[in-house]
C-alpha cells in the first residue's frame, strides 16, 4: 500500500475520533440534543471499509452513524449542522444525530430502529443489480441487531437471490448494556450467516489494515460471485452506549484492556515504527483535523433554523 494511502487511513480515523469527541462536548453544552451515540474506539472498522468505497457505492448504517456519514463524503459541516438542528444540516434539522441521510452521497442513513436498515440495504443492492449499475452496497449493523428476526430474513433472501451486498457487523460485544453472551446463545456470529449459506470472515476491528484487507477480499467475492458476504469486525466502543448511558455494566479492566488496543494509537505507532511518518506529520494531521472540525462547528453555529411554516412540507412529493 502507498504511504499516502496509509496516512489517509490515519487521517480519517483521527477525523472520526475528533468529530465524536467534539460532539460529546457539544452535547454537554446542550448544542446537540436527543440521543447521541458515539463511535470512539471503533474507527478502524468504518475507516477500513470505507477506504475501499467510491462515491457511487451505497451505504446503510445505524443510529451510530456520524463516522459513516463523514467517510462516505458528507461534510463535517452539514453533519454538525444537522445535529444542531439547523436548516443547513443534511436533513435540514429534521433527522438529527441518529438520522443522517445524504442521498447525493448515496448515504442512506441513519436508521434508529435496530436492524430495520438491513433488508432495506438488500433492496438497494437488488436495485443496483437489476439496473446494472456498477456499485457496491455495504450495510453496517451491530452484533445486537443479529438477534432481530429481520436480520435472518434479510440474510436468507440476499443469499437465496444472490444479491451482491457486503454485510458488515460491528461487533462491539454490547447492545446497549447487554453483553453478547447474555443475549445470544451462539456467540460465534459467523454461524448465523452460515445458517443462510452466506460466505463469512472475521476481522480484527481494532486494526485498520486487517479490516481493509478482509473488506477487500469480501468486496471482490461479492463482485465476482454476485453474492452476499458477511464480515464481522471485532471492536469495542470506548464510550458509553449513548450520552444517556451511565455505563454500569462494563468493568473498568475490560474497558482499559481494549483501550490499550486503541486503533488510532496503534496504527500511529505502526506507521512510526515503519518510518512512514514522524511526529510532525501527526501534528500536521491533528491541526488539519482540528481546523476541519472547528470550521464545521462554526458553520453549524452560524446556521439558521428551518422555517416553521415548512414543517408539513415533504410529507409527500406533491404536498396535498
Amino acid at each position: 500500500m502507498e504511504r499516502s494511502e496509509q496516512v489517509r487511513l490515519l487521517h480519517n480515523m483521527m477525523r472520526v475520533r475528533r468529530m465524536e469527541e467534539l460532539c460529546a462536548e457539544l452535547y454537554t453544552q446542550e448544542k446537540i440534543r436527543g440521543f447521541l451515540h458515539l463511535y470512539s474506539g471503533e474507527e478502524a472498522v468504518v475507516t477500513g471499509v470505507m477506504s475501499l468505497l467510491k462515491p457511487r457505492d451505497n451505504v446503510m448504517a445505524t443510529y451510530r452513524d456520524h463516522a459513516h456519514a463523514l467517510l462516505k463524503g458528507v461534510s463535517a459541516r452539514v453533519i454538525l449542522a444537522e445535529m444542531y438542528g439547523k436548516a443547513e444540516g443534511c436533513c435540514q434539522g429534521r433527522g438529527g444525530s441518529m438520522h443522517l441521510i445524504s442521498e447525493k452521497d448515496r448515504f442512506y442513513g441513519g436508521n434508529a430502529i435496530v436492524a430495520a436498515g438491513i433488508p432495506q440495504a438488500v433492496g438497494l443492492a437488488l436495485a443496483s443489480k437489476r439496473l446494472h449499475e456498477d456499485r457496491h452496497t455495504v450495510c453496517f449493523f451491530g452484533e445486537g441487531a443479529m438477534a432481530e428476526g429481520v436480520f435472518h430474513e434479510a440474510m436468507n433472501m440476499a443469499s437465496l437471490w444472490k444479491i451482491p451486498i457486503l454485510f458488515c457487523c460491528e461487533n462491539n460485544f454490547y447492545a446497549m448494556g447487554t453483553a453478547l453472551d447474555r443475549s445470544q446463545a451462539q456467540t460465534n456470529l459467523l454461524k448465523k450467516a452460515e445458517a443462510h449459506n452466506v460466505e463469512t470472515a472475521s476481522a480484527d476491528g481494532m486494526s485498520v489494515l486487517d479490516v481493509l484487507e478482509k473488506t477487500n477480499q469480501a468486496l471482490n467475492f461479492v463482485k465476482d460471485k454476485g453474492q452476499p458476504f458477511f464480515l464481522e469486525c471485532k471492536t469495542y466502543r470506548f464510550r458509553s452506549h449513548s450520552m444517556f448511558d451511565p455505563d454500569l455494566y462494563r468493568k473498568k479492566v475490560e474497558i482499559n484492556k481494549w483501550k490499550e488496543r486503541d486503533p488510532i494509537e496503534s496504527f500511529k505507532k505502526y506507521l512510526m515504527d515503519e518510518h512512514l511518518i514522524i511526529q510532525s506529520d501527526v501534528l500536521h494531521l491533528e491541526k488539519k483535523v482540528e481546523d476541519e472540525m472547528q470550521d464545521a462547528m462554526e458553520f453549524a453555529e452560524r446556521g439558521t433554523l428551518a422555517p416553521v411554516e415548512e414543517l408539513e412540507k415533504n410529507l409527500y412529493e406533491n404536498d396535498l
Partner: protein
Amino acid sequence: MKMTYREALKEGLKTALENDPRVFLIGEDIGAYGGTYAVTKDFLKIYGPEKIMDAPLSEAGFTGIALGAAIGGLRPVVEIMTVNFSLLALDQIINSAAIYRHMSAGQISVPLIIRMTTGGGRQLAAQHSNSFEGWLAHIPGIKILTPGTVEDARSSLHFALKENDPVLIFEHALLLNRSEEVGEKPLLLNPFKALVRKSGDALTVITYGGMLPKCLEAAGESEKVEVIDLRSLRPLDDETIFNSIKKTHRALIVDEGWRSGSLSAEMSARIMENSFYDLDAPVERLCRKEIPVPYARHLEEAAIPGVEDIKNKIQEMLS
C-alpha cells in the same frame, strides 16, 4: 364487456409489468402457486422469476427489501397475502417507508406499492378476516386506496405508480368474483376523489371497498339515499362529503372495520367539525362488531354489517 374484479387487478398488474421495466412483483406464492387468490396466475411463466419474485415467509424482510429497491430506483409491487400478515411488516411501513421523505427533507423518495387482501366474509376466522385499511389510514406519509368497483380495481395500480410515495392498496376478498360492464380501456378516474355512486336527497351513506356493493344494494332505488364511495382513505376527500351533507343533512358511515378509533370515527369527527350546522341529526356509524371475527357462518354474519343491517339502519335514520 364484462370483467371481474380479479381480472381487473390482473390487467392492472400486467399493464404495469409491460409498460415499466422497473416494475416487479414480490410476495408469498405469487409465482409457482399462482397467487393465493389466483390474481397472478401464470405470471411466473410469462414474466419470469426476476419480475415475479416468490418470497419466503418473511413479511418484514421482503417489505424492507422492496422498500430499499424502491429507494434504489425500482418500482416494487409487494403482495401481502392477507391484511393480518401486514402486522409483521408494520415496522418497515410505519417506522421507515412513511417517514423517509419528510425526515430526509425531501431527499429520499419511496415509491413502494403494497397490495393486500382485506376483509371478512369467507369464514376464515380471527386471523384472516380483518379490515385494517381504515386503521392504517392514521399514518401520515402513506396513501391508501380501497377500490370498491371493477373499474377502480383496474386503475388503482396505474395511479399508485404515478405516486413517488408509499401507496397501500386494499383489495377486498369478497369482490374478487364480482363482475361489471366495463369499456375496452380503463376510465382512469383519479382515485383520490370520492365519488357519488348514487344520488339521493335525505341521507348520505359514506362507505368504501367491500361495503360499497352492500350499501348500494341496501339503498336500492330510494331517491332519498345518496351513496358516496371514498375510494381513497388517505388522503380523504372530505369536500365531496360536506357538499352532499349540505343537501341531505344526515349521514351514515358504513365501515367494515371495528368501530372505535376507526376511519368511521374520523369521518364522523370531520363532519361535525365542518358541517355541524348543516346536520339535522347526529352522524351515525355502522361497523364490524368489536370482537375477533368468528368462524361459524351465522356468527360471522352477525359480526359484519350485511345488506339487511344497512337497510335497517337507513330506514331508522330516515324515519
